């Protein structure tokens, strides 16, 4: 039956029945009044019949639901402040969680493994040695001998190159590329989007130099022009012709722009010939199983082939799913789990907050619930109704959160996206995740308070509201779920705030305070001459020539050369040994930064020499080795001694350098600690660095130029000057301030994000504390009233109420410190420079948090003071 019979109709029918029955009884001889009564008695309980009729309706469940929904909406609208708070809190929690979820899934989609076709038969050949990579000769050996595979390909890590100007008028650019074997696309089932891969001839040592382009790079640099095939570009001073463009799906988020044959490595790199060095393991190898071959068979074959390479060869494992280092896979998994745990904490705060609010509100509504229970509402119906309210809140919060989440995810994506041409797509998984999260949140955190609220003893809730039994001692039930609702958010916000504090202090150290000299007017100009075919003589000639031209440029007040920028970590950190000191283990020695600088370095920076003298032109190759040290080095290494005349050695095997001067520290004097630094003059750099492995040759320096006016104008003049003799050069010109901002930018973002999250957590924790205390106070109204009637002082009442909270706050802060300790360990791994927990941050955060929490608990205790003793006692 599709229609529903109306209640009124049923009522009419019963009326008609009474009439008919009375008529009949009347005709049987009863007088009219008696007949009416008898008919009514025969019908029995009319209300019960009508109710049974009502409940037999198939629409009951739906109607209950609709009524609950209407009622819940009305209740929530009535207490708009509460609802807004709950919805906003949930929206933030769910929004942040789903946004990160969207980013993680997007990253995984962009990952290399997503592009692999038919991944079941794709395997990796990983060396069981630590770094898992193979040497070139091993790769070619396996490629020729192994029969289990239909194709095998090798890939190097990313190498940096200087790409010469691609067209007249454009400039050199630094790019990254990978060395690949010819099958690098076909082995994972892809093909070049344009052109072809390397030919047999091009895979010969000293064969024709060729390259494939990354699809995104092709779009960006050549605007997707198909005419790029056959074009010649200059990579590290070698002409390379472009033969193809890789599939758009290949290495989308990788950052490598060029793919070159493995055999071009000796040509393009000045790090030596890695093709013939057996010790150089630099290739990651992937392979496609031949149809019918299993991974076990392939492994057995490799076990036979490997020992034939020689006794010192390590075994090779055949791994499923391609050459992804299991170690790396574990690391990625750990990172993902860590992020998700951190996120769930935020959501947990949001949810516990909601639970707190619901619980606190259930007290206010206890009378209402009691009345409804005593009027015959079943507990199940009431729980359903309360759950409807929390679900409504959760869904509203979830919907708002999804909006917030899509903004956040897109903003973060734009912020971190390194490859142009990628767009973040929010897929159904993201939506489902958000919806599921809201539902789970609504049920799991609504159910507890709903059950608690309806468990009230009827008689008690109706009569004496305040009687809630004697409170047990606080410590006894410290781990009760209700207390955890205070402890956990407090602990989490403490953790987040401490992490934020660490990051902020790091940024402050390197960013806000800056170095101890004027870095806004100091321009750094650096080249990569070694990558562009300049040998030592030509480099020195170029540097000397440019130096004299720059010195003559208007607007330049001073110019100097240094091997490493004064705001970087120098050329490296070396243990310092003084002549005549006892020999001790390297770990126990003081480690200092060092830099090779030309004369005029300290004058250009504006850092005074406080003792002795600065370097002179006469300090050069062949003269007596000399060094200048920083004040901090003297403070730490020769406290109370005369540094001048001491002889030091910075690298085992290098000559001893005589200390001829002491300079002020480069670090900002406002910072508590400075870095010990040692400087040596230009010509003597090779004495210092003998035997050390360096990325750039020691004679290659960067220019430091002090600008007397606005640096922006001078920068373009310098740019012009730098390219005057060779327009194909790559040059980077930035003020030291700009360089510093660039290096701390991500950390600043990170610290801002952490502080925002921490502040959010703090706000939520305070609201939660407020709610839980308001609850506690309202439970003890009667007790407080009696105490006050018996003469308790206001102060005593406040202490009574706050006692429990203080215990909770202390627990929360304690747990938070433990968490922070763990978090700082994790952070220290990712961001080494961040440093450990420092007492200043910890104490200030704990004090801040404690104060806010106490404030949040003071407000409800004031409410306790307003309890009128007479009123409280009359409740009886």
């Amino acid at each position, binding site marked *: 039956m599709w229609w529903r019979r109306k209640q009124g109709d049923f009522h009419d029918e019963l009326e008609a*029945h009474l009439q*008919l029955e009375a*008529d009949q009884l009347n005709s049987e001889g009863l007088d009219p009044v008696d007949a009416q009564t008898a008919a009514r008695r025969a019908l*029995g309980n009319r209300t019960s019949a009508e109710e049974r009729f009502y409940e*037999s309706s198939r629409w009951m469940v739906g109607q209950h639901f609709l009524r609950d929904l209407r009622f819940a909406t009305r209740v929530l609208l009535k207490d708009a402040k509460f609802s807004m708070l709950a919805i906003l809190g949930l929206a933030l929690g769910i929004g942040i969680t789903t946004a990160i979820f969207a980013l993680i899934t997007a990253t995984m989609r962009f990952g290399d493994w997503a592009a692999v076709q038919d991944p079941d038969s794709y395997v990796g050949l990983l060396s069981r040695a630590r770094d898992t990579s193979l040497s070139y000769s091993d790769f070619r050996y396996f490629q020729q001998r192994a029969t289990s595979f239909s194709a095998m390909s090798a890939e190097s890590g990313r190498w940096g190159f200087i790409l010469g100007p691609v067209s007249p008028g454009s400039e050199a650019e630094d790019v990254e590329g990978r060395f690949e074997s010819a099958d690098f696309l076909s082995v994972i089932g892809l093909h070049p989007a344009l052109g072809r891969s390397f030919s047999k001839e091009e895979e010969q040592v000293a064969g024709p130099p060729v390259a494939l382009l990354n699809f995104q790079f092709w779009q960006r640099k050549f605007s997707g022009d198909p005419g790029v095939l056959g074009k010649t570009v200059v990579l590290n001073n070698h002409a390379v012709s472009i033969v193809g463009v890789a599939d758009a799906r290949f290495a989308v988020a990788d950052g490598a722009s060029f793919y070159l044959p493995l055999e071009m490595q000796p040509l393009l790199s000045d790090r030596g010939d890695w093709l013939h060095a057996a010790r150089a393991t630099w290739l990651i190898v992937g392979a496609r199983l031949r149809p019918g071959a299993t991974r076990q068979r392939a492994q057995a074959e490799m076990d036979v082939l490997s020992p034939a390479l020689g006794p010192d060869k390590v075994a090779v494992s055949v791994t499923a799913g391609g050459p992804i280092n299991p170690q790396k896979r574990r690391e990625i998994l750990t990172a993902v789990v860590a992020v998700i745990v951190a996120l769930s904490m935020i959501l947990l705060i949001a949810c516990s907050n909601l639970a707190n609010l619901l619980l606190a509100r259930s007290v206010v509504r206890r009378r209402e619930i009691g009345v409804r229970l005593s009027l015959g509402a079943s507990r199940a119906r009431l729980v359903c109704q309360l759950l409807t309210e929390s679900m409504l809140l959760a869904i509203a919060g979830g919907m708002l959160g999804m909006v917030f989440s899509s903004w956040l995810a897109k903003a973060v994506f734009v912020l971190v996206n390194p490859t142009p041409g990628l767009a973040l797509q929010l897929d159904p998984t993201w939506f489902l995740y958000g919806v599921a999260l809201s539902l789970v949140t609504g049920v799991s955190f609504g159910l507890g308070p709903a059950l608690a609220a309806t468990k009230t003893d009827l008689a008690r809730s109706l009569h004496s509201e305040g009687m809630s039994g004697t409170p047990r001692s606080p410590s006894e039930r410290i781990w009760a779920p209700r207390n955890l609702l205070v402890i956990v958010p407090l602990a989490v916000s403490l953790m987040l705030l401490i992490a934020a504090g660490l990051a902020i202090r790091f940024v402050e150290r390197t960013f806000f305070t800056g170095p101890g000299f004027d870095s806004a007017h100091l321009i750094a100009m650096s080249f990569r001459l070694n990558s562009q075919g300049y040998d030592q003589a030509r480099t020195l000639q170029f540097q000397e020539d440019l130096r004299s031209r720059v010195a003559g440029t208007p607007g330049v007040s001073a110019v100097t050369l240094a091997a490493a920028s004064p705001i970087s970590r120098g050329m490296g950190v070396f243990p310092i040994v003084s002549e005549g000191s006892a020999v001790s283990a390297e770990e126990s020695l003081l480690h200092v930064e060092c830099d090779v600088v030309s004369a005029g370095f300290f004058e250009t920076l504006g850092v005074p020499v406080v003792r002795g003298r600065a370097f002179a032109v006469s300090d050069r190759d062949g003269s007596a080795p000399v060094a200048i040290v920083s004040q901090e080095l003297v403070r730490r290494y020769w406290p109370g001694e005369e540094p001048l005349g001491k002889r030091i050695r910075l690298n085992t095997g290098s000559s001893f350098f005589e200390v001829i001067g002491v300079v002020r520290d480069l670090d900002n004097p406002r910072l508590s600690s400075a870095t010990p630094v040692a400087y040596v003059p230009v010509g003597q750099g090779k004495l210092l660095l003998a035997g050390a492995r360096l990325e750039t040759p020691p004679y290659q320096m960067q220019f430091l130029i002090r600008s007397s006016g606005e640096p922006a104008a001078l920068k373009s003049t310098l740019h012009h000057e730098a390219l005057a003799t060779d327009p194909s050069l790559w040059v980077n010109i930035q003020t030291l301030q700009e360089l510093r901002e660039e290096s701390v930018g991500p950390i600043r973002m990170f610290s801002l994000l952490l502080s925002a999250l921490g502040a959010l957590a703090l706000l939520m924790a305070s609201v939660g504390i407020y709610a839980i205390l308001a609850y506690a106070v309202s439970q003890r109204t009667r007790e407080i009233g009696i105490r006050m009637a018996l003469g308790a002082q206001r102060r005593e009442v406040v202490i009574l109420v706050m006692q429990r909270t203080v215990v909770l706050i202390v627990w929360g802060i304690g747990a938070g410190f433990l968490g922070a300790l763990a978090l700082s360990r994790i952070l220290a791994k990712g961001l080494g420079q961040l440093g450990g927990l420092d007492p200043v941050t910890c104490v200030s955060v704990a004090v801040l948090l404690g104060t806010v929490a106490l404030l949040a608990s003071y407000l409800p205790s004031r409410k306790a003071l307003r309890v009128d003793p007479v009123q409280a006692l009359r409740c009886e």
Partner: protein
Amino acid sequence: MPTQDPSDERIALLQGTLDLLILRTLLFGPQHGQGVARAIQEQSRDVLLVDHGTLYPALQRLESKGWIAAEWGTSANNRRARFYTITKAGRKQLTQETNQWRKLATAIGRVLGPEEH
């Protein structure tokens, strides 16, 4: 609820039998609720007691199952009343349930053994 005299010999209806009796009564033509109650009482020679309060929800249940149809009409003494008619499905149901009931009655009779006088 009407209170029942302990000496009253009338029997309260067994669960589920009311449906059967209603359908059976309606076989003789359209009838309103009060008429159905009276008919059952009279035909059972006042042995079976129909609780008027339970009759109407039962009618409603049968109606929603589609075994009977209802329509407002006028009674013999010019009162407005809701008249019920048995439907085709109702007749089928009646045959089925009557058979079942007979089987049950026979079986119970066998178990109880020959009547003792």
